[in-house]
């Protein structure tokens, strides 16, 4: 058993985390002021579009993804820059969203830069250890994540009120499926950093990737409808973080109340994995051009940290452009494999 080999389950869980990277921070905000039918429709459309791109991702797997991006030499450098913009953009927004949540829920009096810096350093610690360590960490944390997920769902089941999911035959509105698609699928392209030859059973890996892809979308539909059915669509729209609002209601045996501060660890885990992967990805791209080792992380951290300070809104138009650029840049690398 070689250390550097990846099993298909490990890849599948990593894909799950990447799909999940913006769910509890940005995607959940998109479903404000909408209705059940639109939620289902949005996610289904994003799913169909995502499925097409998953097929592309699976085909894009190669042994030298970053070394030889395209056959045309000029394009090669452009793609590299675009990929770098994409991965840095993802890291910046992950960091921003997480620090906002932590500040709102846990450390209301702390300055946000402290939270951002500590989280950035922690992610860098993981990123330095390499992609295999990130994969193993993701797998260990998935167990914790799953246990807390079960607690969240099971102790909230009694609060579900199906009337909140009605009405069914209303007009379809606010279907921003393209945004949902971008937020879920774009980060998955970062999985391509794993060389194909190091995956033990690539065919099985393909299968597992699709399984986790489908599981994730089912999970997302259930999660959002679950939150709406507890809070009601109007209350869902007025609160800042509906997911945390749901955690606040949890009451275990009339004794363990006010557990949202501990259960929020799931959001922490999601973002830690994605951020460290994005940092590692950025480093690999820079490393492909210049032969610099781990010291490059200092530069990446500085770029990310100072960009985050400048930003103050959760999501904006430019972010979706960055994600689109990232996807396009990735697809451009496909030509080489064909010829």
């Amino acid at each position: 058993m070689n250390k550097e080999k990846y099993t298909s389950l490990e890849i599948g869980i990593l894909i799950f985390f990447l799909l999940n990277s913006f769910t509890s921070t940005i995607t959940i905000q998109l479903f404000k002021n909408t209705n059940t039918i639109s939620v289902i429709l949005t996610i289904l459309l994003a799913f169909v579009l995502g499925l097409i791109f998953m097929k592309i991702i699976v085909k894009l797997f190669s042994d030298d993804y970053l070394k030889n991006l395209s056959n045309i030499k000029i394009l090669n450098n452009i793609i590299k820059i675009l990929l770098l913009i994409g991965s840095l953009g993802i890291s910046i927004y992950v960091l921003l969203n997480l620090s906002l949540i932590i500040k709102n829920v846990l450390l209301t009096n702390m300055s946000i830069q402290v939270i951002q810096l500590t989280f950035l350093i922690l992610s860098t610690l993981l990123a330095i250890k390499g992609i295999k360590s990130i994969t193993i960490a993701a797998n260990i944390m998935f167990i914790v994540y799953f246990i807390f997920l079960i607690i969240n769902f099971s102790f909230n089941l009694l609060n579900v009120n199906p009337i909140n999911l009605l009405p069914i035959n209303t007009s379809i509105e606010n279907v921003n499926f393209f945004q949902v698609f971008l937020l879920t699928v774009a980060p998955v392209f970062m999985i391509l950093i794993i060389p194909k030859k190091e995956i033990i059973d690539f065919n099985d890996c393909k299968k597992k990737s699709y399984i986790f892809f489908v599981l994730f979308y089912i999970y997302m539909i259930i999660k959002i409808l679950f939150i709406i059915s507890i809070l009601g669509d109007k209350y869902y729209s007025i609160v800042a973080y509906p997911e945390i609002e749901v955690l606040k209601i949890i009451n275990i045996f009339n004794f363990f109340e006010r557990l949202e501060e501990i259960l929020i660890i799931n959001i922490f885990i999601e973002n830690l994995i994605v951020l460290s992967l994005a940092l590692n990805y950025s480093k690999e791209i820079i490393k492909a051009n210049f032969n610099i080792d781990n010291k490059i992380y200092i530069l990446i951290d500085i770029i990310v940290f100072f960009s985050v300070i400048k930003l103050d809104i959760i999501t904006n138009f430019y972010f979706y452009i960055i994600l689109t650029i990232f996807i396009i840049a990735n697809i451009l690398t496909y030509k080489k494999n064909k010829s």
Partner: protein
Amino acid sequence: MKKIYLIILIIFLTGCTNYNDISNIAVVSSIGISVNGNNYNVYVKVLSSNQENEENIYIKTCTTIDECFNNLSTELMKRLYLTHMDLLILSNNLVKDNYNQIFNFFLNEKSSRGSFTTIIVEHIDNKILETNTTDIKNMLSLSLSTNGITTDITLTDIIKDILNYKISYVPFIKTQNTINVKGYKTIYDENKILTNEESLAINIIKNNIKTFQITIDKNVYKLEQCYTINKVHNDNIEINFYCKYYGNNKSDKNNIENYLTKIITSFTQNNKNNYFEYLLYKYGRNNNIKYNVNINIDYKPNIGGEIFE
């Protein structure tokens, strides 16, 4: 080694400035809000850690609720900490604008969680504030299981109700001689104190009741395992109430059914029907509301006995 750097870095960054010791917080157990002209009177009960002086009640008068809290905080020399709050007491004289302010305050206050019981009293006095919050909660849940007139409702529930159908039913408590429950009071769009029968009716309609007893002509009937299913048909709302009656006389069944049908129909005729409009909207209907009340009491012989005259 990197971890040591990390820790040193954090120490320099935080400088322990945000260190917030628990001995510097004032744990608020209940808050009372009443309005007096343009001013708010805010009553805050702070839990004391010492055994001798059990609770401290503070009163502040100011133009906004935030101002009151800030003043109180500086007066107490402690941060007011609302996460462990159990009870919100609203006075009878609040109107729509006041409610908006109150809800906004609690939605935006970071240490508040909205999961505390809310009640309305005639006027806030020390008697209700001094009462233990768990006692009031117990009283509300007991009144549900005995008379079926009130429920333990939280602020989040009230906000949800108001967002959905502009009316919320809040327990109304009288404090003149003794503290006792007087059914519901509607707030926001409509400000009205409901009678016991009306309160029972709304509880039945909203499926709040599991067990309760009713008194008809000095006879007490105990009903158990109750639930309500509201069905929306094309032109009417069907209220189906199912219950099990453990009694000695099968003929009592009709008595109860007639009585409950009467109070529910009278409630639906005499009150604003925002809840039903909401239901109709949820089921996608826009017709005029018609009601169809079905009360199904299932008779079960009681094991106990009864003395006949």
